[in-house]
């Protein structure tokens, strides 16, 4: 009969350590540490989300420099409001909600200023849907990579023409791959509304991207 010499032989030790490790490195724990003045914890949060948030805002606004500024503003707001953060939502939902609000505010500001995008679109004066300035080149391209690049650029421009209420759920779903439930929480709306808007957004995109499909 074998006798146990150490507690590790029970096989529980690694699982316990893993739980503790996950708990101390979760987003909530990092934000708690940030609240108590741990700057390294906040730096860890930034490193986790900086690319996602920058990319999301860039897809929303179609302006990289502006997206970087807004992403920084997102983290500044998270840092300032760390004391008021509630754990009822996931931290990713919380930070995406801030980023969405900032991006939508920026889009509305641009609309008020009547800014014209430099990526090849112009806004019609009758308030209708934006039209593409440069129609897609239908001639066959030799290089497959060029075709992919052209498609990505075209879809990026087409997303930029979507109304903001369709743009955000489409990006969150098809680019970021988030669930309907999470998108509904981020946008503070119902799941049914999210599904409906995504379906409408895809319909718009399909019409615009017909040459590439």
């Amino acid at each position, binding site marked *: 009969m074998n006798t146990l010499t150490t507690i590790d032989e029970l096989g529980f030790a690694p699982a316990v350590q893993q739980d503790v490790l996950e708990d101390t490195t979760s987003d909530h724990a990092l934000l708690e540490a940030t609240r108590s003045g741990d700057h390294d914890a906040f730096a860890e949060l930034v490193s986790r989300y900086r690319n996602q948030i920058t990319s999301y805002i860039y*897809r929303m606004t179609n302006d990289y420099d502006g997206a970087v500024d807004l992403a920084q503003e997102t983290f500044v707001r998270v840092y300032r409001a760390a004391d008021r953060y509630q754990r009822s939502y996931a931290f990713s939902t919380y930070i995406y909600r801030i980023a969405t609000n900032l991006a939508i505010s920026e889009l509305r500001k641009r609309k008020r200023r009547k800014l014209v995008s430099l990526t090849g679109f112009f806004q019609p004066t009758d308030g209708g849907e934006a039209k593409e300035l440069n129609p897609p080149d239908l001639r066959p391209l030799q290089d497959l990579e060029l075709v992919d690049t052209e498609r990505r650029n075209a879809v990026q421009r087409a997303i930029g023409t979507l109304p903001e209420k369709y743009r955000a759920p489409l990006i969150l779903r098809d680019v970021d791959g988030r669930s309907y439930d999470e998108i509904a929480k981020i946008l503070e709306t119902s799941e049914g509304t999210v599904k409906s808007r995504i379906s409408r957004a895809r319909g718009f995109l*399909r019409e615009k*991207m017909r040459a590439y499909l």
Partner: protein
Amino acid sequence: MRNNNCKLICRELDELMLGEAWSAAATEHLRECAECREFHVQQTKLRKIVGSLGTVEAPADFDFRLRARLANDSSSGPAIYWRLVRGGLVTAAMAVIVLLGVVAVRDAMRVGENIGEVARKPEVHQPVKTDQAPPPVVREDKKPDQVIAGVTNEAPPIVYKSVRRPPTDDKKRPLSSFAMSSTRASVLNGAEPAGMSTAFPIDSSVQSFTVSLEDGRGNAKTISVPTVSFGSQRIGQGGNQFAPKRDW
């Protein structure tokens, strides 16, 4: 032709993630319905293109800029606060100073108005004897034959009639004063030559003025004032020397 079943199947396919397995009913329907199959192919292609956009990376100096921004915000926060507080205090102090200045100027202007008012109407406050004026004002709880201020009934009492101004005047001129005297002031008029009036009994333009003073212990001092000329003295036609300049 699309029917309700097509809509349901397309919705189901649309809501699934790419690569996620769909139901057997959807598989069966796609095998039969070419339109839905075409729609599904296009939709899948579109979602692949959108999904191929991928993630854009943040710039390399993202953390550095963020730290600088946070540091700048934390340092400028109290500075902005104190700047606002200082600005508020300065504004409040200036408002108080301006208010005090306005009050002082207004009071000074009212004092000037009151001086002119008193000078224009000196006769209002003169004593009036009872035989020429209405009966003396007495309190209601006193009997009519009671004596006021130690004056007996035999001698007709001199009653000082106070002329009350309307309430609006009191509000406008809070610093007004009344000269109460039983002795009538002598009035200078143009009939007497200057220097011979009762107000100044010596004709100072002709003779010198000498005064001897003794302190009671044998020490006497004499003060001699030479002939004084006051120049030409103008007297107002109405006898009112305190009237404003426009009356001259």
